[in-house]
């Protein structure tokens, strides 16, 4: 049995030909295979990285961009810890398809998935999409953003390492610090933790946490509206907290009793 602390599933999606396979090859094998044929179905690679002295295993699923394989590729969204949505900075159409991809993510992926937007092929001279356009799109949709070049090995390592870091941090937050388990809380209890909202089911006493998407917690809060004190800071649950604070793992902001 290999020794690793966490295993994360990372799934790459995006139009055909934006360089998903090349990104994966570059990262896992250090290669840039020229004339890479279209991926058929789903490819699978594993790479173990080290984050703060801990071994983190990344299971990378490289999916085919073509519409025909959608049922196969979509089936991987839900169990993914991170989704990397790739477009080609030298191809406006690949960028124009991003909203469609987001819709798919909304429909099939888990609400707590880490979403990363990647503008690939920065080595290309014929750039059609300035960096800020990608950045704005990512910001608007609450995604991380990075530009890469699989050919020049630019930012590729960083992309995956950042994802591993972010996921590790989120995982560690999921193991509640003791204070949560000891409390006699009413059920369910909402706890804000970083950018995410947790629902603590104290009836099970083990304080299993579910991380929810900002949108979700708004829904949950609305559902519980009948029992909710209107003065409670619902707004905090309704909107993502600012990025700067989201990084602070110790930020257990509010505990709301319903």
């Amino acid at each position, binding site marked *: 049995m290999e020794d690793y602390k966490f295993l994360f599933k990372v799934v790459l999606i995006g139009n055909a030909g934006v360089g998903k396979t090349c990104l994966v090859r570059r990262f896992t094998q250090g290669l840039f295979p020229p004339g890479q*044929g*279209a991926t*058929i*179905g*789903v*490819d*699978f*690679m*594993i790479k173990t990285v080290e984050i703060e002295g801990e071994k983190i295993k990344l*299971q990378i699923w490289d999916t*085919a961009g073509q519409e*025909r*394989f*959608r*049922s*196969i590729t979509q*089936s*991987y969204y*839900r*169990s993914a810890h991170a989704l990397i949505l790739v477009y080609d900075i030298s191809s406006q159409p690949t960028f124009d398809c991003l909203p469609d991809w987001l819709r798919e993510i909304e*429909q099939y992926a888990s609400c707590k998935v880490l979403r990363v937007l990647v503008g690939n092929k920065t080595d290309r001279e014929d750039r059609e999409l300035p960096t800020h356009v990608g950045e704005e799109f990512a910001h608007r949709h609450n995604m991380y953003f990075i530009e890469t070049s699989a050919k020049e090995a630019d930012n590729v390592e960083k992309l995956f390492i950042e994802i591993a870091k972010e996921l590790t941090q989120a995982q560690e937050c999921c193991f509640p610090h003791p204070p949560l388990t000891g409390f006699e809380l009413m059920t369910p209890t909402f706890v804000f933790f970083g950018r995410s909202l947790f629902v603590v*089911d104290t*009836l*099970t*006493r*083990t304080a*299993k946490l579910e991380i929810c998407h900002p949108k979700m917690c708004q829904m949950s809060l609305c559902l519980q509206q009948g029992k909710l004190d209107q003065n409670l800071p619902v707004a905090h649950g309704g909107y993502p907290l600012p990025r700067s604070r989201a990084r602070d793992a110790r930020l257990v902001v509010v505990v709301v009793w319903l």
Partner: protein
Amino acid sequence: MLAAYVDLKKAFDSVHHYETAAAHIHRFLAMDETLLLHTTDSASKAENVETWFDRLRQAEKELSSLITHKFDEAVKREDMASVDRFFKLFPLLKKHEEGLKKFTTYLCAKIQESTAQNLASAQNLGPREKRSHVIWADTFTLLFEGIARTIEVRQPIIETYYGPGHLSLVVEMLQRECDRQAGRVGSEMRKHRRLDAVVSAVRNSLRFGGGREPRADQPDPRDLDTLLGELTLINARAELYLRFIRRRVTADFEASLPVAAEREKKEAEFEGRLSQSQLVCDMAVIVGDYTILEQFYLNESFKKALAMDTVEEGAHTSSIVDDAFYIIKKSIRRSIASSSVDGVCAMLNHAVTLVETQLVEGFRQTLRKGFPAQGYLDLNQAYTVLQSSLQSTLQAGKINSTTTDSDALRQAFLTALNNTGTSMCHVRSLYASLEDSINSAMVGLSNTARAKLDSCLNDLKTTTGKLAMVVEFGISQLRATAVKPRVKPWVDIFNTISHDIQEVLVMALEALHEEAKPLGLEVSWLKTKVQNQFASYEANDPFSQTLMVQVDGLLGSFTSLLTEENYKALVGVLVSEVAEQLEKAVFKSSFNRLGGLQFDREVRAIVGYLSQVSEWGVREHLTRLTQMATLLNLESIAEVSEYSSTTTWRLTPSEMRKVLQLRVDFKADEIKRLKL
């Protein structure tokens, strides 16, 4: 050399001796011209030799064009024997590649011809014919088998006359023909099975779905059964065929390329071209279409099963559990039959999604509504409930519905709890059986393919964790409403009985008796009465007896309603609830020597009973209680250390002190001085 030429001449003259002629040319071609020139001594002779060479070269040219011509003629005449005959001659003229290409082109034409025939008969096959439901899979099979047979039959000739190492060229050419023919069969199949229309209807339904209203163009999942079967068969045949040619070509490389590095390079090149071949792409598309349809089949069949969900009389679970897992198993098994790793992985993923979003969430929702308390055991409780129900009656203006409502809720709750537990068992057995069928049906997988399958299979297995959490949640709900409030009054009785008073009372009475005797008063009847009371209490103590009867009653009301596993969980919860509450009650009372003895007896009875109804693991909960009784039943504090040498205390030192302090006759400072 002269002799060679003369032979050649003769051979030419006798038209039919191509073999001899070719053999001579072959000998000539094997000679080293320049070496011969150099070794010939005189210049004149050398000149002479050169003319001979020219003539021989001329002859070679003539012969090769003659053979080519003859070969083509034989192909035209469909004269198999001649085709074979001339094919064998090309290598003698060092025209391996040309020979192979010409020959393979001929083979390709044959394949094309037979596929055209097969296609025609497939198109003309009536819908009621025996194999009409898989006719397109059959047509594909005929194509693949035809090519495989061609390779099988021709390989020995090629190897004998051309030597090893030439198979990949032939196979690649055949593969291109296969690509073309498979494309033709595929597009006919799509047309006849209306595959594209069906797929797009299904895709729409999946995309805008979750649909309450089935769309008009949405197919009935049952109608897809045949099509799904055929699609899996097509891919399975293709996989079988691809495996065959891979094996053949690899063996040929092994025979011809002794250097491992070179061989691996060639193999990788071949594999690279094969894996990007049109056939492989077409098959991936077919698997993609199949997966969409299968996903739809799975989801729609589940919806139907859910709509028809019923609980049969006397059953613990409702029909959805068995139905859901039957459907899941059927879908994944079918995907395994397709031999497509991506197809199987996708269906495993879709199954996990179904289990987690439908079953786990559905059961959780039902359990979240809670288990309404039933049966009122003491007046207080009954009164409170009465009041609140009166209120609600006043508000809602109805009386009867509340009890039936809560009956229905209770039933739904218990069914959901049982369904969840049973689902866990189903997932486990599904996992085991799927792993078996994958291992037996999908052999020779690459490491990547194996890792993909393992990862997806593992995801299926981990759904048991999610289900276990829901069971745990349900049991905790049950504890909150069905166990805790009922255990409380039973344990409360404990505090109504003093564990301190009897002996004191007896002593006081004795003193009273002594004092009263001189006065001639008769109080002995009082003493006897108290003693009798105590004796009967000892023999048949009201607290533990009642508790056991009540626990038995509670458990009895659930035995027939819960699955074995859930019943065990309930027993565990009940035991720990009793133990917990009793512990609290103990700390609220005080004990003397006799009270301690009495308590020890009570605990023994209760623990004896509870151990009998529960599993070994549950008894852990009771150990603390037993140890408290031991402490309270000591003759003196000094005995603590005796016990400590043989007992692993489940009580903390401070808890032990607190327990000892409950004994009125133990001195506080002695307890404090104890080394624990």
